[in-house]
C-alpha cells in the first residue's frame, strides 16, 4: 500500500454534509469523526466528540473515496505523457483515493521488480493508494505466461493484459487456468484482434460517411462470449474491462444467471459520448474500445443501473500533444479523464440517466469489491473520503487540470461538481482552493 497504515492524522470532524455510500447510507446533516486515519464515529457520537480540526461542509456530499480499476499512470517509461506523481495528484483532484495502475508501462509490469518500483515511487510521491495490476502475459505480448504468483506476492491486486489482446483462445484459457490456481482475478478488455483488424472507430454510420476504419461490434461481442465460456470452464474470477456494446451487457447478465463469476466495468466516456462525437474527425474522442451508437450508450447505462456493470472507470490515458496532433487514424487512443469522471457522472444524474446513489456505488463499493477492498461510511473503516459540492461548477482547462495530459473532450466546458477535499487515511490528498 502506497500510503502507510501507521500515519496518524489529526482528529478531524466533518460537519453539515450529506453522507452517501454504495451500501445504503444516505443521511444529511450528519457529522463524521476521523481519528487515527479511520472513521471513528458518525452522527450523535461524532457531534459530541472533540476535534482538532472541525470542517463545515454544508451543502457537500461525503462519500467513500472513489476507486478506479483502470488508470494509466505512465510510469515507468512514458514520462512525456505523465508520471505517478502528476497522475495520482490528478486522481486526488478527481475524488479518487485508490487507483489500479495499468500494466501498460515501459517496461511492462510483468515482474515483481516492476511492481515494487511502482509501489516505491507511489509510496513517496502519490497522495492516493496505488494498486498495481500485473501483466498476465510476459511483456503483454499475449503468448507466454507471466510470473503471476510473483506479481501477486509483490502486491498486484489482479492480472490482465491492459488494452492488448492475448494471441489466441488456447493461451487465454491457460492464462485463466493459471491465474485461478492462485485465486487471482483476471481483467481483460474484450477485443477479437482479427475482427478489429486495423480499425480505430465504431463501424457504423459515422465511419461509413467519413471513411474511417471501423471496429465492428462483433470484435467485442465475440471476445466476450469466448472469455465467458473459458471463465466458466476454468472457474477463474473474470473481470471484463471497458465494455462498449449493448450485446456485451446482455451476455454478462446471462452469464451471471448461469453462475459464472464475472464482473464488468465501463469507462465514463462511454456513458456520455457516442460515435457522433467523431463526426468532425476530433481526435480527442479517439478511444479504444471506440465510442459506439446511442443504443449502446443507453444499454450500458441500463447495465450500470441494474448492477450488471459493477464499476465505472476513468480509463485515464494522458497523452503528450504530439500523440493527438495528427489525422484521426494516426493519433493514439485515449483521453485524460480522471479529473472529470465525477462531473460527467453528475451530468448523467442531472439528466436522470443515473441516480446519485447508482453513480456513487459504481465509483466506490462496486469497484472496491472486485479487488477485494472495503468501501463504506462506517465506524472503523479507513477514512478514504471524497467531499464534493454538486452545486458548484468548474471548467476543465490548462489552469484547472493537474494531469500532464490535457486532451480531454470536456476542456472549456462548464461542468457540475467540484471536489472540495479528498482524504486518504484521514490525510488531505486534495483540497480545493476555490469556494
Amino acid at each position, binding site marked *: 500500500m502506497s500510503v502507510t497504515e501507521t500515519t496518524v492524522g489529526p482528529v478531524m470532524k466533518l460537519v453539515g454534509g450529506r453522507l452517501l455510500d454504495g451500501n445504503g447510507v444516505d443521511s444529511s446533516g450528519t457529522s463524521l469523526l476521523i481519528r487515527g486515519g479511520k472513521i471513528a464515529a458518525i452522527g450523535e457520537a461524532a457531534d459530541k466528540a472533540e476535534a482538532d480540526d472541525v470542517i463545515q461542509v454544508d451543502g457537500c456530499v461525503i462519500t467513500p473515496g472513489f476507486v478506479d480499476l483502470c488508470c494509466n499512470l505512465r510510469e515507468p517509461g512514458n514520462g512525456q505523457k505523465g508520471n505517478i506523481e502528476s497522475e495520482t495528484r490528478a486522481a486526488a483532484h478527481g475524488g479518487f483515493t485508490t487507483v489500479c495502475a495499468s500494466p501498460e508501462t515501459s517496461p511492462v509490469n510483468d515482474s515483481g521488480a516492476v511492481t515494487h518500483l511502482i509501489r516505491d515511487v507511489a509510496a513517496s510521491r502519490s497522495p492516493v493508494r496505488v494498486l498495481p495490476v500485473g501483466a498476465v502475459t510476459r511483456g503483454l505480448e499475449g503468448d507466454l505466461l507471466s510470473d503471476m504468483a510473483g506479481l501477486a506476492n509483490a502486491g498486484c491486486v489482479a492480472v490482465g493484459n491492459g488494452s492488448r489482446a492475448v494471441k489466441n483462445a488456447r493461451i487465454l484459457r491457460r492464462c485463466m487456468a493459471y491465474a485461478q490456481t492462485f485465486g487471482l482475478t483476471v481483467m481483460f478488455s474484450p477485443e477479437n484482434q482479427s475482427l478489429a483488424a486495423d480499425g480505430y472507430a465504431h463501424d*457504423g*454510420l459515422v465511419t461509413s*460517411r467519413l*471513411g*474511417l476504419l471501423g471496429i465492428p461490434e462483433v470484435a467485442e461481442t465475440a471476445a466476450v462470449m469466448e472469455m465467458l465460456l473459458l471463465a466458466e470452464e476454468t472457474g477463474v474470477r473474470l473481470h471484463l474491462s471497458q465494455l462498449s456494446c449493448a450485446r456485451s451487457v446482455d451476455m454478462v447478465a446471462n452469464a451471471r444467471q448461469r453462475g459464472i463469476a464475472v464482473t464488468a466495468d465501463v469507462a465514463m466516456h462511454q456513458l456520455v459520448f457516442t460515435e457522433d462525437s467523431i*463526426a*468532425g474527425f476530433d481526435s480527442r474522442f479517439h478511444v479504444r474500445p471506440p465510442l459506439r451508437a446511442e443504443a449502446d450508450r443507453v444499454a450500458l447505462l441500463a447495465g450500470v443501473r441494474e448492477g450488471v456493470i459493477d464499476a465505472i472507470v476513468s480509463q485515464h490515458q494522458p497523452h503528450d500533444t504530439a500523440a493527438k*496532433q495528427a489525422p*484521426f*487514424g494516426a493519433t493514439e487512443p485515449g483521453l485524460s479523464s480522471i479529473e472529470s469522471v465525477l462531473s460527467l457522472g453528475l451530468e448523467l444524474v442531472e439528466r436522470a440517466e443515473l441516480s446519485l446513489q447508482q453513480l456513487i456505488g459504481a465509483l466506490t463499493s462496486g469497484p472496491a469489491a472486485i479487488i477485494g477492498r472495503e468501501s463504506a461510511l462506517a465506524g472503523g473503516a479507513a477514512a478514504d473520503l471524497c467531499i464534493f459540492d454538486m452545486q458548484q461548477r468548474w471548467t476543465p482547462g490548462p489552469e484547472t487540470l493537474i494531469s500532464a495530459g490535457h486532451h480531454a473532450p470536456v476542456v472549456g466546458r462548464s461542468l457540475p461538481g467540484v471536489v472540495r477535499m479528498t482524504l486518504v487515511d484521514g490525510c488531505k490528498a486534495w483540497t480545493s482552493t476555490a469556494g
Partner: protein
Amino acid sequence: MTANDPSPNHLQLTRDGQLRHFLTLDGLDRALLTDILDTADSFIEVGERTIKKVPLLRGRTVVNLFFESSTRTRSTFELAAKRLSADVLNLDISTSATSKGESLSDTLLNLEAMASDMFVVRHSQSGAPHFIAESVTPGVAIINAGDGRHAHPTQAMLDMLTIRQHKGRFEGLKVAIVGDVLHSRVARSQIRALNELGAAEVRIIAPGTLLPRDVESLGCKVEYDMSRGMKDLDVVIMLRLQKERMEGALLPSEREFYRLYGLNQEKLALAHPECIVMHPGPINRGVEIESAVADGPQSVILNQVTNGIAIRMAVMSMAMGGQIAERQQKSSERAQA
C-alpha cells in the same frame, strides 16, 4: 461551433458562405455546388485558347502535397494552378521529409513559413485535410485531393460536370456506382453530390464484402445483381478495383469479379440507350470494364479528364478568393481594434 458539429462548414466556408478550403462536399448546398460547376464551365473555354492562362492566382504560391503518389490527379492540379498563373511547387512527401521522421505538422509549418497560399493535399488518412485546415495551417487554403477512404471532392465535381454536359440536368437521373465502394473516397463524394444536386436514384452495385456498414444511410440503394441494377440507368460509374482486394479475402478472383460486376456491352444494353459510362481512372481493362465499352460511343471517360482541369481551376480560384476576403476582413478588424 462545437466539436460535435457534424457539418464541416465552419471550417471550409467563410462567415458569408464563400469557400475558403475545399475539404468535402458534406454540408455544401446545391447553390454552391452549381456555382462550382458554372465557374468550371467558364474555364473550359480557357483550355481551348492558344494562350491557356488567366491571371486569377498570379503571385500566389500553390504547393501540391502528395503524401500518396498519383500521376494524373497531381498533373491536373498542376496544370490548373499554372493556367491560373500561380507559382507551383510539387512535393512528393512520401519520399521526403516524413521518411526522415519529421511530423506532418512540422512539414506543413515549414511550408507555410515559405509563404504558401494554398496546399493541395492527398493523404492516405481519412480526415488529414480537415486536420491541417483546423489545427495546423488554417491561414492556408486547403484543397482535398483525396484523403483515405473519406472524400475526393474535386473528382466527384468533375464527374458532375461531365454528367451535366451530357444530360443537361440532374433531376430525374438514375445513376449507378459499381464496384469497390468500401475503399472508395470517390464513391462517397459522388453519392453526396448526386443526392444534393437532385438525382432521382443512386444505386450501388457491389458484393457485400465491398460495401461500407449501413451504406444506405449515405443516400443510396444497394443492388447485388448487376443485371437488375443496370435497368433504366442514365449514368453508370465504374470504380477502380485494387489487386490487393483478392489478398484480403474480399473477393475470390478478378475473373469472378469481372463476370459478376464487370461492365460489358451485354450488360450496358440493359441500361437506357443513352446511358453514359464513366470511370475515375486509371482503368483496369478486363477487370472492371471491357475495352469495347471503355472506348465505345457511350464512354465519356476522356471528357472526365478534360473537365478535371476546369473543376480544379474553379475550386482553386474560389477557395483563394474566400481565403483572401477573409484575410482582408481580419486585417481590417485588427485595424479598427
